């Protein structure tokens, strides 16, 4: 069994990469993928702590995070497609008004 620090360290680096992607990119879909990376890094931290404390709560929380992520993706991608229909563009630098 590897030390839990390895997994937490990996999850910290993965979270930072996801945060960088959200902040640095212009395309809304890449921002979405970066959010998925951040959710996954949080899940990895949950599972590694669940393993080190030998409890189930961490794994159950990851289960709910995955369910919420699925809901988030369904609504978020529908929003992106709807924005594309009105603006013909999903560049977050160009989307600066709520209507038309």
């Amino acid at each position: 069994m590897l030390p839990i620090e390895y997994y937490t360290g990996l999850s910290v680096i993965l979270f930072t990469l996801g945060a960088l992607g959200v902040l640095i990119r212009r395309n809304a879909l890449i921002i979405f993928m970066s959010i998925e990376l951040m959710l996954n890094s949080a899940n990895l931290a949950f599972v590694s702590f669940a393993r080190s404390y030998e409890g189930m709560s961490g794994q159950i929380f990851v289960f709910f995070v995955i369910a919420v992520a699925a809901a988030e993706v369904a609504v978020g991608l529908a929003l992106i497609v709807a924005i594309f229909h009105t603006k013909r563009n999903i560049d977050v630098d160009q989307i600066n008004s709520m209507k038309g």
Partner: protein
Amino acid sequence: MITVSLIIFLIVAVITLGSALMVVTARNLVHAALWLVVALFGVAILFGLLQAGFLAVVQVVIYIGAIVILIIFAIMLTQRNALEIGSRFNENWGWALGISALVFAALVWAIVSWPGFHVQAQPLDARFDSVAELGKALVASNGYALPFELASVLLLAALIGAIVIAWERKPEER
């Protein structure tokens, strides 16, 4: 000491982080989505290494099987060509790098200064069945039965919301 699990962990870690970096930097959106598949698969392997087999399978089925496929559909619906025109990065990339470094430092500090961080995992009892424990906890009334039901309501609401948002109305209805 170098063990087999350390070697597997290092290989998977390098692949996961490399493909995550490719997701963040790739110019082609479809390539970014495929790199995301690799990164998510790496995380699934890490779940397996942490003896959370059920979550590893859920990760592959839901994340790779459903979420990334939805993202690829959205790419197909919104891009006239998969390559981005112009710069990939917005003009505030300097700030973005600085804030990311700050986030990294804050996370490292928060985790290292937490006393529970150094609890070491013990080998699990051979009879311990994490899938059975997870299933019992999700339906037990003193466990997580209520959040489980709430999650199903949330998924239904998201389903309806997604249909309503993406519905293409005919021009006269607007």
